[in-house]
Each structure stands twice: as structure tokens, then as C-alpha cells.
């Protein structure tokens, strides 16, 4: 390490900031909690919505999701859900996959999958709500 190089005039704090154990300080811990708290009411809501749809025909299901606040709540739910899932699976991989190349590959694939899952869900909700 080059902590006592003299050609770097930055304050030591400037060099350390944002470069914690996971290169992101407490960000992971914090966002896992924030998404968890958002998900408490959202999951309770979606369970109620899904149970109310059991046995309903296609038009009823489509109309229920298309209702403005249902569409908005569903969009918020999938964002929080895939974000929370990504943060959780990231830790599982960090804990159990010790080959660096495999770990990085898996982390990238999980991130990609969760982004795609969220985008697909948002696209679907948008299409249901806006195109009828």
C-alpha cells in the first residue's frame, strides 16, 4: 500500500471514503433494511390482492392490476422486492462461493437477473395499466 506517498496530496479521509469492506461502507446494510421496511406493508397488500384474485377470470385480474394505485403499489413492490433479493443473494454468494472468478461471475449474473426481473415486471405493469 502507498499510504505515505508524498505525491498524493489528498486528505487520507478522501481516499478512504466510500471504500469500506464492500467498497460501499454501510450501504448494503442500510438498503437491505430500507427495502425490508417498505416491503412489510407492500407484501401484506399483495397477499390480499392475490388471494382476492383466486378463481377470477382474466378480465378481472387484468382490471385489478390496472387500477391506478394497484399498478403504482405493484411497481413499488417489484422494485423493492428485486432490490432486496439482490442484496440478500449477494451475501449468500459471498458466504459460500470462495473461488473468486466463480463468485464475481455469479454476482454479475444475479445483478443482471434481478435488474431484468424488475424491468420485465415494470414493463408488464405499465402495459397492463396504460394499454388496457
Amino acid at each position, binding site marked *: 500500500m502507498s499510504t505515505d506517498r508524498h505525491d498524493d496530496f489528498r486528505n487520507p479521509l478522501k481516499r478512504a471514503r466510500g471504500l469500506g469492506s464492500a467498497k460501499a461502507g454501510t450501504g448494503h446494510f442500510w438498503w437491505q*433494511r430500507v427495502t*425490508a*421496511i417498505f*416491503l*412489510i406493508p407492500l*407484501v*401484506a397488500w399483495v*397477499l390480499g390482492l392475490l*388471494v382476492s384474485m*383466486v*378463481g377470477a377470470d*382474466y378480465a378481472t*385480474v*387484468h382490471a385489478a*392490476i390496472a387500477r391506478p394505485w394497484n399498478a403504482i403499489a*405493484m411497481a413499488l413492490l*417489484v422494485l423493492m*422486492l*428485486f432490490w432486496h*433479493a439482490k442484496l*440478500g*443473494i449477494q451475501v*449468500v454468494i459471498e458466504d459460500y462461493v470462495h473461488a473468486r472468478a466463480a463468485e464475481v461471475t455469479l454476482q454479475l449474473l444475479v445483478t443482471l*437477473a*434481478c435488474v431484468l*426481473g*424488475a424491468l*420485465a*415486471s415494470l*414493463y*408488464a*405493469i405499465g*402495459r*397492463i395499466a396504460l394499454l388496457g
Partner: protein
Amino acid sequence: MSTRERPLSPHLQVYRWQITMVMSILHRVSGVILTVGAFVLAWWLMGVAEGGERYARIAGLMASPLGELVLFGFSLALVYHLLNGIRHLLWDVGWGFEIPEFYRTGWTVAVLTVALTAAIWFVALGGGAA
């Protein structure tokens, strides 16, 4: 650099099974299951958006006995992870760190998980007044 086999610190197998560790393991297991569930939700939403044959096939799969079993598994994992997650959040604000409280909240979550999941399926399968 050569590494010698060294004694490892005691791991899971030396401990007596107790509810605190079971809850902790199940929280992670249910979280992984629910990640799969999130993709099933996305797949279902895409089906609703597309409609027609595609939606009919997805709805048919979900209403099949195997489909219902999988959905039951997701609902159980979801209710558990939700309730035990609230337990985790309470620990985060510093509440419930006495040993008896660990056990009490653990059993509370276990009992509520079974009761709530049963209630959801009671209503879903038409047992309710609706």
C-alpha cells in the same frame, strides 16, 4: 506458499439444534426461495400483460396440483420471512436481545407463520364467506 491442514473451529455439527439457529437458517433458505418467487411473480405479470393463450397456460399451471403446492411453498416462505424479518428489524433497533426473548419471539414467529399461512389458504380455497 504451502498450507498445512489446521484444526478448524467448531462448526454447525457440534451444536445441539435449537430454535434460534433453526430460525436463522430458515430465514436465509426462505429468502433464496422467495428470490425464485420474485421471478415467478415477474413471469406471471408478463403473462397478464400479454393475455390470451400465454396467460391461460400460466394460470393453468398455477392452478394444477403441483402449481398449488409450489405456490403454497412460496406463501409459507413469504409469511415466515416477513414475520422473522420484523424480528430482525426489532433487533436492529436494539429490542429483544435477552435470551428468553430470543426464544419467545422465535416461537411467536413460528406459530404465527403456521396460523397466517393456514388463514391465507383457508380464504384462497373458498373457506371464507366470500
